[in-house]
């Protein structure tokens, strides 16, 4: 890898946790531990807020309002935060509660909402290949997600091919090629500026001829309100269907956890244009909470397949509702 000059940036030590919430067991093999170490950073503020709020305190209107605000700061959105809080009020209003009890009840309610959408990506290698199209706005982490997923499925013994469908952005093709070399997966690419739909057509055809199990097609990032770029994406899907009527078998929308309420618009429009079948939430290792996922689950019910909690390949993890919810409210 070093010949490319792309050193792993955090080989020495994982990112240190912020001062108030030290997170032990960074290297724990359990994915929950890993997620927690990522999310602990995000939820430390939320947690300390809850701690301040609810240590031996009556759950009155004022407390509920503050709680609602804490959920808002986690990007749940005004409406969802209000609904979750109202639910809490229904069962516990007027009672003396501890912060632990509140966290547990909150996590339960969030798990109830997220449970139905926590579904892993189901690859059917018999499709030869199972075609996964990856879409999203610019900079959400599509190419990195593909790289990580390719590694996972390659390690699981599947024949995986990558298609460099981002023929627009400078060096995007090269970026995917590096991932191809890292993961030892062939990359189908054309020069920057080539027709992406044509490339996708060729990729499915070649991958099929080779008898691949799995084909990931990368696409150029595009803002969902750009009608012409969205139409291009729809065209790309049509060209895939010319080779295989049933493809793409999955369309993954990659969302950045830092995003706020605009995620609604992203899901809505991408879903309309290219029938998004599932979501991946990236960059959860920062301080962004990704709480918008709760609102998205309520509104669209799309499966959440995976979350990204770091830059290493193994930092892409299946999405588990309970763990996410508990981490979101700061439960250990």
């Amino acid at each position, binding site marked *: 890898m070093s010949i490319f000059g792309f050193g792993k940036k955090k080989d020495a030590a994982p990112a240190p946790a912020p001062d108030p919430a030290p997170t032990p067991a960074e290297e724990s093999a359990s994915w929950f531990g890993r997620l927690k170490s990522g999310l602990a950073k995000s939820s430390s503020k939320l947690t300390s807020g809850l701690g301040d709020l609810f240590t031996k305190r009556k759950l009155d209107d004022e407390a509920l309002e503050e709680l609602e605000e804490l959920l808002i*700061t986690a990007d749940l959105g005004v409406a969802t935060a209000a609904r979750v809080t109202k639910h809490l009020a229904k069962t516990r209003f007027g009672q003396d509660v501890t912060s632990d009890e509140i966290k547990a009840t909150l996590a339960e309610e969030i798990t109830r909402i997220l449970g139905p959408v926590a579904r892993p990506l189901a690859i059917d290698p018999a499709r030869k290949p199972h075609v996964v199209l990856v879409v999203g706005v610019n900079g959400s982490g599509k190419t990195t997600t593909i790289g990580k997923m390719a590694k996972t499925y390659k390690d699981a013994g599947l024949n995986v091919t990558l298609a460099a469908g981002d023929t627009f952005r400078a060096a995007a093709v090269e970026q995917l090629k590096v991932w191809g070399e890292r993961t030892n997966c062939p990359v189908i690419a054309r020069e920057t500026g080539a027709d992406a739909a044509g490339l996708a057509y060729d990729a499915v055809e070649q991958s099929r001829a080779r008898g691949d199990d799995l084909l990931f097609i990368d696409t150029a990032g595009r803002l969902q309100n750009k009608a012409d770029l969205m139409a291009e994406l729809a065209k790309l899907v049509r060209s895939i269907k010319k080779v295989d009527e049933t493809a793409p078998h999955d369309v993954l929308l990659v969302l*950045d956890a830092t995003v706020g309420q605009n995620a609604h618009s992203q899901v809505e429009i991408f879903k309309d244009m290219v029938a998004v079948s599932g979501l991946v939430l990236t960059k959860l290792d920062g301080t962004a909470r990704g709480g918008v996922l709760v609102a998205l689950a309520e509104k669209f019910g799309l499966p959440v397949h995976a979350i990204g909690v770091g830059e290493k390949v193994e930092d892409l993890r299946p999405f588990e509702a309970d763990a996410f919810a508990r981490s979101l409210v700061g439960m250990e």
Partner: protein
Amino acid sequence: MFESLSSRLGKVFEKLTGRGALSEADVTEALREVRVALLEADVALSVVKEFIGRVKARAVGQEVIKSVTPGQMVVKIVHDELIATLGTKGTELNLSAVPPVVILMVGLQGSGKTTTSAKIALKLKKEKKKVLLASLDVYRPAAQQQLQILAGQAEVGSLPIVMGEMPVAISRRAVDVGRKEGYDVVILDTAGRLHIDQELMAEVAAVRDATQPTETLLVTDAMTGQDAVTLAREFNEKVGVTGIVLTRIDGDARGGAALSMRAITGRPIKFLGAGEKLDALEVFHPDRIAGRILGMGDVVGLVEKAMETLDQEEAERLAKRMEKGKFDLDDMRKQFAQVRKMGDLKGILGMLPGIGKMAGALKDANIDNKMVARQEAIITSMTKAERRNPDLIKASRKKRIAAGAGVEVQDVNKLLKQYQQMADMMKKVGKLGQKGLMRHGIGGLLPPGMKFGR
């Protein structure tokens, strides 16, 4: 998707018919809606609270201008305060140092640093500066190549890539090359990093110490949510930010992050990234961002225009007639004249909330000033009696009117139909009082099915 602030406020003030000063109760009620609107626009909660407090202090007791509703008045105050918070437009880059002047670009992964670096390089090149671009991103695959390609497109200098060289060393080499080869500006594009990644934050701080940049620009995505506060604070504390660049402003995000970051860091927003092309870099316009955050188009501009141009007395006379259920073709003509006085109709419609989505429909409907002028011509081709009593207008009169106005009979029919719809609506509006005229007067000109939210 989200209700615009003005439609929210519309509901709040529907019940209010009183004039005069805004009472504390009015303002409190309205600001509850403002709060939700700001939160939905992703303004950070702490910033929202502080902002609301300031607006409240300004709004209570404020006189409501005659031609606008109390709701619109509150929007105006909120908007003005937003602009004041967002800061002045067009803060230029600080290049006053011994060349080569260093600009350091920082931000989270995927925020748009590399593209923005190239955009700024192109802008400076156009200002006759000799610019060198250098990528310190040794982590993301092909990031250095990306900047090199973009430098080629912008036709500015690019620091040769040395594989395996680490960021601080690259930055030193960049400044050296900049000095030896007579560059005016060296732009250092760094790897995306999380503000809580101490190791990488220390690295960028070391780059800063080694190169002494005059500008350290924090590049942030306009879609950023509540986390904007945290990341802006951390970057500012650990690296020292001198300005903010908000990217992807060409998306449909409301961009509340701009307000959050400005409020938290006190640093100016210097540029807006508005597209993937290298020339899509705009200087910051607080009014534009304020309008987006409020999700209301340029209602404020509309209110101001209305204040400038609408003839108050005439509007009130019309309103009185409507209250009595009298609205004839002469009144309609006068409304047309008032609308025309406000300027280009498309421009006015563009200021209205929710109209963006209807841009296509507007095109199809062919709404323009010419159409209004033609309709005026049809009415002026009628006799006084006909204008007062449109029921008189039958087949032969229609032919005469059409000939007089230079249109077809069907155009006359269309106008009469439109008049009927307007008259029916005006009767309802009349019951709402004088404000109803302002509220529905322009809407009444739109074909049925194109009413916009209010």
